[in-house]
């Protein structure tokens, strides 16, 4: 079985996003960019499945600017076998991403696609489910355990009330939650080896997919800031403030 792992280049999770003065978006100039953390978990899960003899090949795919090659090299250094970049400088919404990924799936015929449950930039949490819909495949979203069982998989999902487990036929879609695994760091020799692995660069037009956006961003603003509070010295003072000043207890 082949596993396809889409990865996105996003603002590093330790960096606080700053809104541009002209309110057109978030300032990404000279900001550290990294692989979306949920996608790292997806790459790790694919590698573990390969190490367990449940997969033969891992293909990483990214949709984004030329610099997304670095993100793909990271995936290759972790252990993916080859990579595809669908290069574009446009904003690509989840629906268009899902359409591009469907085209890649049609060409590569993976048995499993493992995606991050959401990207930490647009926080949409849509692409995996949309890809599943376009392919007519089942989906195990927000996964904390993925087990290959017979001809299918069992996915334990993090849901509002706790955990639930579903059994899916293959091929299937999995989206990762935080506790699925702890991604490995790429070793220096693997980083060197990754430079020689195959990385194909394509365009959306190569796949015949229209990626024009459906949403117009009218403005991007900073949320209202909380006024700074005070430090209290004792529990008595805290209780007094909560009762008599804030009136919340």
């Amino acid at each position: 079985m082949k596993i396809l792992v889409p990865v996105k280049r996003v603002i590093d999770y330790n960096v606080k996003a700053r809104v541009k003065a002209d309110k057109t978006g978030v300032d990404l100039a000279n900001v550290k960019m990294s692989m979306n953390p949920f996608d790292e978990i997806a790459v790790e899960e694919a590698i573990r499945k390969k190490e367990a003899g449940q997969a033969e090949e891992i293909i990483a795919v990214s949709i984004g600017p030329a610099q997304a090659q670095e993100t793909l090299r990271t995936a290759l250094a972790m252990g993916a076998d080859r990579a595809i970049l669908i290069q574009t400088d446009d904003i690509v919404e989840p629906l268009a991403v899902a359409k591009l990924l469907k085209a890649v799936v049609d060409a590569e015929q993976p048995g499993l696609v493992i995606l991050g449950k959401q990207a930490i930039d647009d926080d949409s949490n849509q692409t995996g489910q949309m890809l599943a819909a376009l392919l007519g495949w089942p989906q195990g979203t927000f996964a904390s355990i993925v087990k290959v069982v017979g001809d299918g998989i069992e996915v334990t999902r993090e849901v509002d009330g706790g955990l639930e487990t579903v059994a899916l036929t293959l091929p299937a879609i999995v989206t990762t939650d935080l506790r699925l695994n702890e991604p490995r760091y790429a070793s220096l020799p693997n980083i060197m080896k990754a430079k020689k692995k195959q990385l194909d660069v394509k365009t959306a037009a190569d796949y015949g997919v229209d990626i024009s956006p459906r949403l117009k961003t009218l403005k991007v603003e900073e949320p209202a800031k909380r006024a700074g509070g005070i430090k209290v010295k004792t529990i008595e003072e805290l209780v007094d403030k909560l009762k008599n000043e804030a009136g919340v207890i």
Partner: protein
Amino acid sequence: MTALVLAEHDNAELKPATLNAVTAASQLGGDVHVLVAGSGAQAVADAAARIAGVSVVLLADDASYGNRLAENIAPLIVSLAGDYDAIVAPTTTSGKNILPRVAAQLDVAQISDVMKVESADTFVRPIYAGNALATVQSTDSKKVMTVRGTGFPAAAATGGSAEIRTIAAAANPGNSRFVGAELAKSDRPELTAAKIIVSGGRGMGSSGAFSIIESLADKLGAAVGASRAAVDAGFISNDHQVGQTGKIVAPQLYIAVGISGAIQHLAGMKDSKVIVAINKDEEAPIFQIADYGLVADLFQAVPELEKAL
């Protein structure tokens, strides 16, 4: 203009998140219908029919909807979508699981986690862990959106008398099966509906130590929350996680104990009315957004606070 709201429920009870979604849907400016897809869910449909402002409840009662599998429910919503201008679901794990599948099948963009309805096609939603708010206008003829509970007041649970229409189930693709669930059982209020939340972080140090959080929560009639660090460390189960990818809460009072205040955690609770932080590290970022900060050893301060109430 008619909007269809996907009801959040467990076949027995209608969940409060539905009420906030109904308010968001009514702000689109037309009629609001509610879809109850479940198994043995007549009581849920009856409850949905009593929501103020709902004119029609569609009840699809079928074994295949008993566990709200997205593979089964999405085709049902798609089959109904022709009659609606908007499909709305609460931003719950169920809404997040099902709705993008509907949007893709309808070939429309989904607007995720809407906080504010500006007009029937323009919405405000958080991006970058809530560090920016985007106002987006949808160019699709049909709107598909999940809505953040804390952004909309709950519609009145009683006072309505909607017509209940029983509808047939859609074809079941048969590619997924519910195996089981481990759901937390608690007498405490639900996190997303609680007026007071007491949350613990990495500073708790162990799962045993969470008992002082639980004890304080019980004294206050509060829900128990946690940071990602506490959940990752195995101190407490995932359903307690508050943050960018966990639950978004906005209670009257949020007491953060031993939580440093990573941006991902703040994203989930910074709209709380009053925030209290108890942390021994006076440099912890949580103090920058707390209304009342107490620099103290939580193992002394929390029991002391409980006693003082």
